[in-house]
């Protein structure tokens, strides 16, 4: 190829003005790279063209606000583009953080639920335990209360018994076992208030009765037995209030049918005691 002919072929102008075909452009670029004189000719035409355009910009000028508009745009994109790398980095962590936020809430909810379940179970077990303990305490308290009441009753019994024994007007008639007694070691005591004639019985030692039998106290008045009441034997040391007896020379206890008899059964006499003085 004759380089001078090539330079004058119009390719330089075609290339610079952008109207050369892609094949011509490629060829021109490779020729430029290997032939400095072609490149020099190109440079010269470019300079000429630039100078011409710079000196003949035309009568219509771009609006002055266009400069600001372009600057605003490039600064917006300049803000974007460097940040596109830096933003993408923060945005990526931001995405997981966003997702992570929900994850965190979900995780927190699950943890709370699990925690709540565990606590519920714990408190329920505690509650059951305390409920049982409360019932135990409550029943033992009831037991204690009833025991206390029993003690109170007993104490009252003892107090009243003590009062009876302390009473200076009280006549004490000891009733020993009679020879014919079914239980030879039987013993009972009558406390007889000489002022108001009230009779109290203390069963010191009387055998336990069968269900359809009952002890009965008799006052012997002028040789005749007078019913002085049925003996309701209670546990412990207790004075049993009997019927009021105005006069009597002796007292005796027989075992009678339940509800008592009108007249004593002589064979069933356990104890007998004479009123002294």
């Amino acid at each position, binding site marked *: 190829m004759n380089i001078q002919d090539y330079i*004058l*072929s*119009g390719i330089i*102008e*075609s290339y*610079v*003005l*952008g*109207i050369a*075909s892609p094949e011509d452009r490629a060829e021109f*670029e490779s020729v*430029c*790279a290997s032939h400095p004189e072609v490149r020099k000719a*190109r*440079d*010269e*035409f*470019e*300079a*000429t*063209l*630039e100078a*011409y*355009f*710079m000196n*003949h*910009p*035309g*009568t*219509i*000028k*771009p*609006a002055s606000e*266009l*400069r600001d*508009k*372009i*600057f605003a*745009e*490039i*600064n917006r*994109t*300049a803000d974007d*583009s*460097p940040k596109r790398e830096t933003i993408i980095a923060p945005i990526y962590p931001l995405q997981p953080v966003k997702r992570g936020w929900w994850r965190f809430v979900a995780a927190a909810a699950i943890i709370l639920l699990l925690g709540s379940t565990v606590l519920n179970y714990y408190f329920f077990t505690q509650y059951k335990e305390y409920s049982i303990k409360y019932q135990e305490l409550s029943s033992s308290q009831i037991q204690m209360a009833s025991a206390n009441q029993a003690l109170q009753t007993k104490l009252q019994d003892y107090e009243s018994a003590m009062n009876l024994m302390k009473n200076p007007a009280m006549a004490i008639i000891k009733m020993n076992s009679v020879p014919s007694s079914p239980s030879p070691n039987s013993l009972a005591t009558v406390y007889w208030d000489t002022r108001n004639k009230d009779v109290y019985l203390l069963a010191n030692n009387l055998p336990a009765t069968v269900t359809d039998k009952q002890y009965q106290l008799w006052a012997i008045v002028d040789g005749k037995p007078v019913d002085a009441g049925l003996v309701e034997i209670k546990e412990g040391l207790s004075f049993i209030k009997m019927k009021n007896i105005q006069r009597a020379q002796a007292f005796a206890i027989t075992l009678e049918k339940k509800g008592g008899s009108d007249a004593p059964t002589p064979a069933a006499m356990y104890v007998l005691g004479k009123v002294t003085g």
Partner: protein
Amino acid sequence: MAVQDLHSERELVLLLKEKNNKAFGYLYDNYSAALFGIIHQIIDDNELASDILQEVFINIWRRIETYDPSKGRLFTWMLNIARNASIDTLRSKNYQNSKKNQELPDDVNNIGSGTPIIQANIDNIGLRKILERLKPEHRILIELAYFKGYTHEEISKIESIPLGTVKTRIRNALLQLKEYLQ
């Protein structure tokens, strides 16, 4: 071309590649009028040409990394960005429709007839002024190739002249143009 010029252009390009706002401001102040003229020669609409100029400068800003000084001057690179953007707009459907609505009959007739399609208000801008001095058969080819962006093959069809003739005429037109430029 002065050494000083080359030196400053190299520096300018370097600063632009570093996204230096001041350098870009200098670039705009220095070249916007010339580039606007280049656009306006192709797009005879002030508003549209302004939009294109904006697009061109944004593209320069964004694509400065792709500029290769071994393939030509910065101005040539920018000229081609401006010309290509203008021709893209020229060929866009919106533009075609708006033009058809405005001046359908004349435009259609003018393309084939060899009569200048040059509007009065852009007559005296940049290359247009030189174009007037070319022979009509040369002028129309430059018009179609440079201002309308047609390939040689397309021009051959439009003008119904052989491809070889198109090439020869364009070559002669360009050499003529070069002389007038100096």
